[in-house]
């Protein structure tokens, strides 16, 4: 039977098992939206801005592990997706973005709402396509989903001209792909794995450095098995939160710029860093030459280009984390390896007790850290997804939230995209309808996409926005305080809008809290509310995120927090001797 390209596109989505598509229509996208009207399995969600659509798909992908799907029109519709695509690319999030395009006959003529979106997105997609022949469409879609979800995941864009959507073809969805230039290395090299296992068995001060790759790979079970077998302490990056249960004794927390001091001390002092699905990002490493400088490094990653990119490694293992970690466990069992980290853990626990994260609680002022702590306590026993905006709110969420389950955390890592949180939370709610989805927000970031409050209301997605409203672009203000003599240039946000009224205008529950004693009641009211809710917490305006590594500094030399450091001054000689015994 002959069907149109648009119908074939929708059939292909159905064949891929797509449940929800975030889409915004426009002129040349109409044939596809018309075909979607018929679909009984693909739910189409209308955001209020194309950027929102992409972040929704991103949030959905982060909590489900399935690719997020977006459909927008040409020109501005397409260019509005750029930030969201770049965000997904930086964080290796699987996503397929369909952009409608002007007809092939007028491409290149500056036609109405024409933009060269494949040209624009080359550096921010894993791959992209401009489909010029309708016969190729099913194959391209099959390839796109395959590329987006395998190897190191990432966004793939398909540009579909309107005449291709209208043209007819005999539809058959391919079962396999044939990509001679794309064969990710999944299985780790046996010799390298053996060598890594030998080093782990011998190490006295090993440290596991886990990132988003563990979550992308679905390797959390294997990670836990390895770490428990060898009693390896774990530091998980912002992208790796949830890869290892954060209430586990072996879990130390987030490394880097705003990590707890004891985490950065552990990195500085470790003799074997086992890096899994990480990319040695500058926000983690600080000054590269002093990052894990006493350590040998094992680096497990599916992307060979990440090995040695920023930091030379001793044992590279290219492969899928899940398989590689499982094989490491097998090897270690074969060697009857026993944990040797007892003394090392005591060193770390000593640091942990002396240099915990810390802030000054206040009786009259709502402290932002306190709000996140209360979110943590009040959601202890209910399935919860924590999403963040970008800035101070995000760092406090990293520091004080405890992510215990994989894929229950979504935060814009590499790109640091303000405006990510609210739409990502909505997308996450679609992916995890039974979970309480909370967006830890700031008053700056949320205003970049607050129009999506309408989407949550209309689509009945009961997300909760915990707004840490300090009247500033808080992180910018913090840097200005610390490095620009408190010259608050363009970082002051006067109290506008009234967020409670804004929430109410969108049909949300809106609450305001100015007294720390009211925090719990407000959070409970919002969490129990049968619909979306926003709490405008008026928090201490000039609170800083501490501790902090100054940009370009060594990670063991941190500003703020409990005084201490660099790590050379922090070592308890007696305990250290035990490590070496």
């Amino acid at each position, binding site marked *: 039977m002959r069907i149109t390209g648009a119908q074939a596109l929708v059939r292909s989505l159905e064949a891929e098992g797509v449940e929800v598509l975030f889409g915004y229509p426009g002129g040349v996208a109409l044939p596809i939206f018309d075909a979607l009207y018929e679909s009984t399995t693909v739910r189409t969600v209308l955001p209020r801005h194309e950027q929102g659509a992409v972040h929704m798909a991103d949030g959905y992908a982060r909590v489900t592990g399935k690719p997020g799907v977006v459909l927008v029109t040409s020109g501005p519709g397409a260019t509005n997706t750029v930030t969201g695509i770049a965000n997904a690319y930086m964080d290796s999030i699987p996503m397929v973005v369909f952009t409608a395009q002007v007809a092939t006959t007028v491409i290149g003529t500056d036609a109405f709402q024409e933009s060269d979106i494949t*040209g624009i997105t080359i550096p921010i997609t894993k*791959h992209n396509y401009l489909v010029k022949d309708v016969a190729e469409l099913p194959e391209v879609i099959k390839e796109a989903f395959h*590329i987006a979800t395998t190897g190191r995941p990432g966004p793939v864009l398909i540009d579909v001209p309107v005449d291709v959507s209208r043209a007819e073809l005999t539809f058959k969805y391919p079962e396999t792909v044939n990509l*001679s230039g*794309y064969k990710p290395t999944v299985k780790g090299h046996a010799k390298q794995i053996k060598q890594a296992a030998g080093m782990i068995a011998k190490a006295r001060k090993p440290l596991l450095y886990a990132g988003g790759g563990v979550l992308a790979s679905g390797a959390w079970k294997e990670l836990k098995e390895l770490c428990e077998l060898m009693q390896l302490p774990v530091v998980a990056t912002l992208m790796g939160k949830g890869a290892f249960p954060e209430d586990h004794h072996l879990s130390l927390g987030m490394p880097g710029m705003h990590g707890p001091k004891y985490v950065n001390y552990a990195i500085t002092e470790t003799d074997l860093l086992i890096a899994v699905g990480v990319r040695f990002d500058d926000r983690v490493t600080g000054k590269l030459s002093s990052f894990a400088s006493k350590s040998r490094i094992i680096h497990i990653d599916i992307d*060979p280009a990440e090995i040695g*990119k920023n930091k030379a490694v001793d044992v590279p293992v290219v492969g899928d984390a899940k398989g590689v970690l499982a094989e490491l466990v097998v090897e270690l069992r074969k060697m009857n390896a026993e944990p040797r980290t007892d003394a090392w853990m005591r060193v770390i626990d000593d640091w942990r007790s002396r240099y915990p994260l810390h802030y000054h609680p206040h009786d009259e002022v709502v402290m932002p850290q306190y709000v996140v702590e209360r979110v943590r306590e009040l959601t202890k026993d209910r399935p919860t997804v924590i999403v963040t905006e970008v800035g101070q709110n995000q760092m406090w969420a990293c520091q004080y939230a405890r992510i215990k389950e994989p894929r229950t955390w979504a935060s814009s890592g590499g790109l640091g995209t303000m405006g990510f949180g609210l739409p990502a939370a909505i997308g996450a709610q679609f992916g995890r309808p039974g979970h309480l989805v909370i967006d830890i927000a700031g008053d700056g970031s949320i205003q970049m996409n607050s129009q999506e409050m309408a989407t949550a209301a209309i689509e009945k997605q009961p997300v909760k926005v915990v707004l840490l409203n300090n009247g500033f672009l808080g992180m910018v203000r913090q840097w200005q305080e610390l490095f620009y003599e408190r010259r608050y240039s363009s970082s002051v946000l006067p109290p506008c809008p009234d967020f409670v009224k804004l929430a109410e205008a969108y049909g949300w529950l809106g609450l305001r809290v100015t007294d720390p004693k009211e925090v719990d009641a407000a959070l409970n009211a919002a969490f129990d509310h049968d619909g979306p809710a926003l709490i405008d917490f008026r928090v201490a305006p000039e609170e800083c995120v501490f501790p902090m590594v100054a940009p370009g500094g060594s990670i063991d030399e941190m500003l703020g927090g409990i005084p201490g450091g660099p790590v050379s001054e922090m070592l308890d000689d007696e305990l250290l001797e035990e490590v070496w015994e």
Partner: protein
Amino acid sequence: MQHTLSVLVENKPGVLTRVASLFARRGFNIDSLAVGVTEDPSLSRITIVVGGDDVRLEQVAKQLHKLINVIKIQDLDPREMVDRELVLFKVNAPADRRHEIIEIANVFRAKIVDVGKNTVTIEATGAGDKLAAMEDLLRAYGIKELARTGKIALSRALREGAATA
């Protein structure tokens, strides 16, 4: 150090842009570039000559590998490759000096491909150093125009004492 990368790619629109933009993004200046279809019409070979820091270049090569349309990359060893460029020189050639120019062309096994009243155009192929030597000699007569292709290269066959062409 200069590297000659031989990149086998799918012969599809936009592939050259993907490859070239990877170099541009990382601040590499491409010294020479040549693209053409191979013995298999579905594949093209891009020969890229690029200078720069070895570690950074290795990173570019790894990123190139990640492009879906890239099949294979070789960083050709200068001792183990055959490389050629083609240059067209349009040289001032008044009648009384024309024979000298023809002589030079002959020495370099180049061809005269066009003769005008006051100029001759010479087609020369070879490795870069030979063409540079020829250019030096011709400059004395006045080079009016010059066009050159990018370098193309293939790895040498694996055999003992392979002769240089």
